């Protein structure tokens, strides 16, 4: 069966990169200050720090690009499918029939790029469709909400 997956907008990659920069900066800058100026670490410690910085920079350059290239989603009449990952690619499938709740959320960085996350919840777990443009997210949420209502009404009628 051919599935028409949708790719994300380019802004999603920028959002991923800024998020990665902020997270790694929060971890690495205080560790570096603590290690060099307060703990005065030896050469081995400095080498470890250097490697960490190099890996972080490599991650910031490469990871958002790979994640963006791999990220796909598909919402059709039957199911919601999300394909994502960096090295390990995962694919989550939620049958529309099992949907219980739809939630739209937006973090501070995503807000800058006008991106939102749609979280679809079932009775057994949830799946997030991330980095969607605000209008697309609202449209998807509305569409899914109508489907949930339709299913609920059909069940009541039974």
């Amino acid at each position, binding site marked *: 069966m051919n599935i028409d997956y949708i790719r994300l907008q380019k802004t999603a990659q920028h959002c991923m990169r800024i998020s990665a920069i902020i997270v790694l900066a929060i971890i690495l800058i205080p560790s570096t200050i603590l290690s060099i100026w307060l703990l005065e670490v030896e050469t081995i410690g400095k080498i470890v720090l250097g490697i960490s910085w190099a890996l972080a920079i490599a991650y910031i350059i490469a990871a958002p690009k790979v994640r963006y290239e791999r990220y796909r989603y598909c919402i059709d009449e039957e199911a919601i499918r999300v394909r994502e*990952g960096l*090295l*390990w690619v995962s694919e989550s499938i*939620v*049958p529309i*029939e099992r949907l219980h709740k739809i939630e739209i959320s937006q973090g501070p960085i995503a807000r800058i790029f006008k991106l939102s996350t749609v979280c679809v919840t*079932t009775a057994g*777990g949830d*799946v997030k469709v991330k980095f969607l443009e605000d209008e697309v997210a609202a449209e998807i949420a509305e569409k899914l909400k109508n489907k949930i209502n339709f299913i609920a009404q059909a069940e009541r009628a039974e």
Partner: protein
Amino acid sequence: MEKKKIRCHFSIIFESLWKFWVVIFILLLNELEVIIEIVQDIGKDGIMAFLETGGIWGLLILVAITLIVFGIQFFRWRKTWIILEDNLVIIERNTLKKVKNTIAIENISAVNMERNLFERIVGTYRIKMDTNSMTTANETDVSIVFREDVAIAFRKTILERMHKLKGNLDTSALSEERQPDELTKASAGDRKVFHYSPLDMVKHSFYSMHILGLLISIGGIGGMIWYVSEFGWYSFLNEALGGLIAVVIMVIGSIYGIVKNFFKYYDFTVYRDGKDLHIKCGLIKLRSYTIPVDKITAITVQQPVIARLFGKYHVEVTTVGMQDEDGENSNITMALSKEECITHMEELVPEYYWDGIFDYSKEEKGGAMVRVVKSIKWHVLVIIAMVLLFTLAEAPWYIAVLAPLAFDLFVCLLYILSHKTAGYKIKEEGLVLVNGYFAKHISLVKYQKAQVLTMTYHPVAKRYGIGDGTIMLLNTAVSVPYIKEDLASEISDRIIGGTTK
């Protein structure tokens, strides 16, 4: 409007009081040395001297606290009502805090009965009701104590109303006012009752034993015998008393498991009645519970390590809203052979696909290579541990090398066992998923019960065109072993095709 208002049996006050005394006893145990001193003083100087030296105050405080707790419990009992109103069960409590808990009978998933030793002496039963709610899935929603005849009648009324609300007007199957103690007598008619003898309990307890505990115990006892035969009792008591205590604790631990299971599952009886499974078991604490088959999320055929060696199986069901003492899994059989297991289950839960469940396919061979790559992180950690032990901790070479190496070999063994055990079978009605390391778990998952399927493709797995994953169910998750990508999409299509929630 039909309204029935009843109170719990008054013995509940003393049951709560008993629990209070257990707490006091545990607190006093912490002050054991002081207690021993007091007892020695009483023995030496007499009880009057103890009372005169201030002991009277201690006793008075204890009596006063007991009376206060008794008073509170009495007040709670007097002010708590269980109201049965049409299709509602209302628990109303008008103490300092007013609480009114209303439960619609149609949302009740199970009405179970149990009695501990105290309740057995007093002649009462504890009724435990669970609802379908996921938020209270890990706890019993209502737990009330009634006199035996009241409890049996109450349970019967609730079950009848539950069945009527579900559209099952034929309540003849429920009309017997039966005690859980007399469950086996209900075998009359065409119902088949599976009853297990005390010998079956012993066998089940043995097969369910934890292998690690057993091995450590055997090793410990062996080591002790060797030490005593080599160096004698005197040397043993002087030099290795700590070891003796550890061995004794380990042996008690493994025996405790057998004894606990024997007491818990004593007289295990199960039968199918309409759409429900009725189970009764327990020696000291008698439990009787009902599992509606439509509330079963998944069924797992379990094979603990020892059972695996002897080719025995037992079956557990995972349900929402109902819980066993060990969580939400309930045993519905004791240890059985493969053939017995199929026969029993076809009678108890024919809704599931039992035919050929043991003839599943092994996970894809590429899975072994993925596991080899996944294990690399452990080998790296083990090498780092060796270097650190040798350089920084300056440990002798045999410790620095052998201890991490033993750990690494154990991790490798786990990877090998998980590959050897893993398997799957795609059937029309659902999946058979096999997982485990030393023990084997064969899970039966119906497509319509699956909520989310997540498949993960490791870079190495991708080369073999395989992936592993997880199926999220209502309150549990089952692992999917390494399967071909086209099979994964076949499973996802079947899950999407399952329309019932």
